[in-house]
C-alpha cells in the first residue's frame, strides 16, 4: 500500500521515491541502486560529498542517504554546508554510516536537523522501511 506525504508543494509517493545516495563505497551504491530501482524507486548516486551537495542544490529528492566517513568532503561537511544555508531541515537526510558513533552524537545530529540515521550493517528490508518512513515523515 502506498503512503503519501508532502514536502512543500510536492506529494511524496512512498512507492516511487526519488532517492539520492551519497556514499564513497561504490559496491554499496551500485547494489543499493539496483535494489531500490527493482523496488520502483528512482536512484541517483554521488560518490563524494561535494558532488552530493551540488545534486541537492540542483534537484529535489524525497530522501538523501548520506554516508559520514568519506575522503575530502565528508558527510559532516555536507551537513554543515546545508545547515549554513538553512537547508538541512528542508531536506530529508538520513545518515547512513558504518562509523563508530555514540548515541549522543547521533542525537546531536538529529537535533541539528538530520531526519534520521541508519547504522551499517542493516537488514535490507529494514533499510527500505526506514527510507520510506523518513521520506514520508
Amino acid at each position, binding site marked *: 500500500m502506498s503512503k503519501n506525504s508532502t514536502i512543500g508543494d510536492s506529494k511524496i509517493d512512498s512507492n516511487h521515491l526519488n532517492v539520492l545516495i551519497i556514499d564513497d*563505497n561504490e*559496491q*554499496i551504491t*551500485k*547494489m*543499493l541502486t*539496483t*535494489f531500490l530501482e*527493482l523496488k520502483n524507486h528512482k536512484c541517483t548516486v554521488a560518490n563524494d560529498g561535494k558532488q552530493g551537495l551540488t545534486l541537492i542544490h540542483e534537484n529535489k529528492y524525497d530522501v538523501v542517504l548520506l554516508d*559520514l*566517513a568519506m*575522503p*575530502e568532503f*565528508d558527510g*559532516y*561537511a555536507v551537513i*554543515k554546508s546545508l545547515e549554513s544555508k538553512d537547508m538541512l531541515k528542508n531536506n530529508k537526510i538520513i545518515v547512513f554510516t*558504518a*562509523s*563508530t*558513533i*555514540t548515541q549522543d*552524537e547521533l542525537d*546531536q*545530529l538529529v537535533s541539528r536537523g538530520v531526519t534520521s540515521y541508519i*547504522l*551499517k*550493517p*542493516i*537488514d*535490507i528490508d529494514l533499510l527500505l522501511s526506514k527510507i520510506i518512513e523518513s521520506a514520508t515523515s
Partner: protein
Amino acid sequence: MTVESIVENMFELDSPINELNRLLVKYGLTQNQAKVYLYLSKMGIKTASEISKSLKIPRTETYHLLSTLQQKGIIFSVFGKPTKFNAVGIDESVVILLNNEKNRINELETGKESIIKLWKMIPKYSTSKEKSDENKFQTLQGRNSILVKLEQMIKESSENILVLGTELDFKKFYHTDFTNLLKKTKSELRILTDYSSKGMHIFEDIPSKKIKKLDDKNREDFCFIIKDDTEVIFFVSNSELKDMMALWTDSKTFVTTLRSLFSLIWKKAHHIDESNAESLLGSEITYEHRLREIEQEKIILNYLQKNFKLSEKKLGVKK
C-alpha cells in the same frame, strides 16, 4: 665595592646585560660597541680612560668605539679636560638604532638597480652550458634567511601552497610577512597543523576550510612548505642547533615525495572546526568500520541474489 668588581658582575655570563648586549648587536652594534654603550648607560658619565680600564678594552680601540657610538647618536661627549662621555637613554637609543638600520635598508634598496645594471655591463666569461633541469639545493640558516625564501615562494606561487607543521613551528613566523602573505595568497592554500584552543592565532584570518588538523601520530618533528608542486622548503629540526635551519630544493623527487605525504595526511585529516563527534569519529576509516561496510555489502548482495537471481557480475561488483 670597586668599579672593577661592579663591571665584572655586570658582565657575568648569566647577567641580563649579556642578553641585552646580544640584542643590541641585532640593532647594528658590534659586541664591544654594545658593551661600551651599556657600561655608560649604567655607570653614567666617564672618561675614555676609565671606560678602557673598566672594560679591559685597549685605549685606542676605546677611542674608536666612542667615536663610532657618537656618530650613531647614542652617546655624547661632555666638554672638559679630559673629555667625558655619557649615554643617551635606552628608549631613545633603540629608536635611533632602529632608524639607522631602516635607512641602511633603504640605501640598499636604492642601490639594487645599480648593482644589476653594472653586472649586466660586464660580459659573461663562462663557456659551460647550463643545464636547466638540474636539481638545486640550498641550505638556509637563521630565521631571516628562511623568511626571505618563504616570502619569495609565496609571492611567486600561482597554483598551490601546502603547509605542514605544528603551531610551534609557525609561531616563529608570527608577526612577519609570511603569515600576511599566506592570508592574501591567490593560490590554493592548504594547511595541516596541530590544534589547541589556546593556539591557532597565527592562522586566525585564514578560512578554516583551508586548515586541517594534524593528528597525534602525524605530529612528528617535521615541517615543510611546498609551492606549486615545484619547490619545497623543509625545516631541519635539531635541538642542538642554536639557529633555525632549513633545506630548500626544487628536486622533483623530493617535492613529489613530500607532496604525496601531504596528500595522504590531508585526505585522512579533518577540518579544525568540526565538532567533537566528528573528531571522535577520527580521521581514519577503522578496521571495524570497514568490516561493517563489508557486512552491509554482503547483506544487499545476498538479498539481490536470493530474490532477484542477480549475479555479482551482472551487478558489476567485486567479491
